């Protein structure tokens, strides 16, 4: 694993070395990284491993390198290893690898384009969601930032255009990306309910957009972001469903207010999903997923922060109790698997600027967003469950 990371960094540096020209080019290269280790204990159900017995199957490692070739050209790449229970085994993946060309950059505006694999700027947290220092809690609110299909909206291979306008009051920025999104078995299982013989693949290019306004003093942030994704499923002969397409539009409205010692954050997400061509078993599953949360944080001391959050989420906003969806499965899947409401309280201690400890407790009603892979028998899940988690994180 370590040699793989080193190899990746060496490869990245080798890639950029032919364009090095100035004598002091090493000043233009930066290498940074992070490592986090978590512990999860749940009263019932499984989340990130055998959490009902206490699980340490939550590890995040990342290393990145960037090279400012000229004031307007930046090359950057990050390798990420993520171990998360039965869902992710820690195999290193390229989190992003891009060339960022700032075509124009003045005190009034900036615009440019990123070419390669770039992170999707969705909501307040998606683009750095695996860096514990940038998250508000050990786990992001799952009702919006689902772990189960994270790769689908995490990044895209293609182009991302950006523009920023600066004025005396603040900054307005706009990002527009076009590219293909990586698809894995977690995507297939969560959308189609099972790992069939056929495969789900990325269909038409995904379109990602975000508009954001931030006041000059950094106190207010407003953003509206969306990803339009098309997936195609090529059925194998033995599959009980036909080949079809899934279209989804994932959008988030976000607002955040930051004062010197406290902050308030709210995000609202909807995701209409359409199934076409699979046959009657699947095609009538069209629904709109809904999720939202309100979060407050308070600095007790400069190095100690409290966070409280209430979140709700539903697989179908027109059936928030889950009763119709449960009935459609003949009761095989209980109603509580179609929603989740939870309270969370947490404490963050910045022991040093680069080392952080966190502890959190969560009270849940409902089991939606618990990975199907880790909880294969829906009727065996427990509706009311609690979760305690710890995290240690270091960065450089």
């Amino acid at each position, binding site marked *: 694993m370590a040699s793989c990371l080193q190899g990746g960094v060496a490869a990245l540096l080798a890639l950029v070395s032919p364009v090095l020209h100035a004598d002091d080019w090493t000043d233009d290269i930066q290498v940074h990284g992070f490592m986090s280790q978590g512990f999860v204990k749940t009263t019932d159900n499984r989340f990130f491993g055998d959490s009902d017995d206490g699980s340490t199957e939550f590890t995040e490692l990342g290393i990145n390198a960037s090279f400012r070739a000229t004031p*307007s050209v930046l090359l950057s790449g*990050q390798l990420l290893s993520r171990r998360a229970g039965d869902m992710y085994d820690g195999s290193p993946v390229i989190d992003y690898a891009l060339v*960022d060309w700032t075509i124009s*950059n003045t*005190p009034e505006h900036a615009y440019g384009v990123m070419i390669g694999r770039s992170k999707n700027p969705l909501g307040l947290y998606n*683009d750095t969601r695996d860096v514990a220092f940038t998250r508000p809690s050990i786990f992001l609110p799952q009702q919006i930032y689902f772990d189960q299909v994270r790769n689908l909206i995490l990044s895209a291979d293609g182009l991302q255009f950006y523009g920023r306008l600066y004025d005396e009051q603040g900054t307005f920025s706009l990002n527009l990306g076009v590219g293909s999104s990586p698809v894995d078995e977690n995507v297939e299982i969560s959308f189609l309910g099972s790992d069939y013989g056929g495969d789900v693949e990325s269909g038409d290019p995904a379109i990602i957009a975000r508009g954001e306004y931030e006041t000059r*003093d*950094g106190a207010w942030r407003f953003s509206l972001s969306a990803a339009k994704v098309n997936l195609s499923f090529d059925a194998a002969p033995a599959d009980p469903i036909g080949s079809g397409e899934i279209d989804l539009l994932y959008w988030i409205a976000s607002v955040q207010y930051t004062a010197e010692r406290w902050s308030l954050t709210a995000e609202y997400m909807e995701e209409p999903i359409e199934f076409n061509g699979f046959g009657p078993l699947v095609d009538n599953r069209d629904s709109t997923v809904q999720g939202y949360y309100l979060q407050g944080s308070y600095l007790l001391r*400069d190095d100690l922060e409290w966070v409280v959050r209430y979140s709700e989420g539903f697989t179908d906003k027109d059936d928030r109790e889950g009763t119709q969806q449960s009935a459609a499965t003949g009761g095989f899947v209980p109603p509580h698997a179609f929603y989740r409401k939870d309270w969370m309280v947490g404490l963050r201690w910045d022991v040093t600027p680069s080392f952080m400890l966190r502890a959190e407790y969560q009270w849940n009603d409902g089991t939606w967003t618990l990975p199907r892979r880790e909880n294969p028998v829906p009727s065996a899940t427990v509706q009311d469950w609690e979760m305690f988690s710890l995290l240690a994180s270091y960065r450089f």
Partner: protein
Amino acid sequence: MLYPRPISFPKRLSGVLIALICAFSAYADPVLIAHPAVGMRDVSLNSTRLIFSMQLAQWPDGGPVRVYVLPDDSEVHRSFAKDLLSLYPRQLRRVWDRQLYSGTGQAPEAVADPVEMRQKVANTPGAIGYLPSEMIDDTVQVLSIR
């Protein structure tokens, strides 16, 4: 004609008071500095914020900007962020982290203390940083914020 009434403090005591006030404000208000060859005397508040947010990477002449900062928990950094930029150090950190870990920007270079700050800014073409005013000497160019 209105003249202020003469101050009735003994001259010596008022001298001490002025010295105290100066010492205090020097501590509370760091001064923006740059490498002497940057060739500017002043810079707009907007540009200063963008430069320290790592979003403006070049000087008007096209040369690269190199940003130096003191540690987040240093008093001088705090006062620089709050008094000169009207930002909390946590907000600056959030902006840097977001760019650094999404591959869209680089982090400023951290120096250990004001002595190293002065040495780096004096010797790095395109450098910008800040210092408590009592540490300014002719190796660095003071920039006023307009």
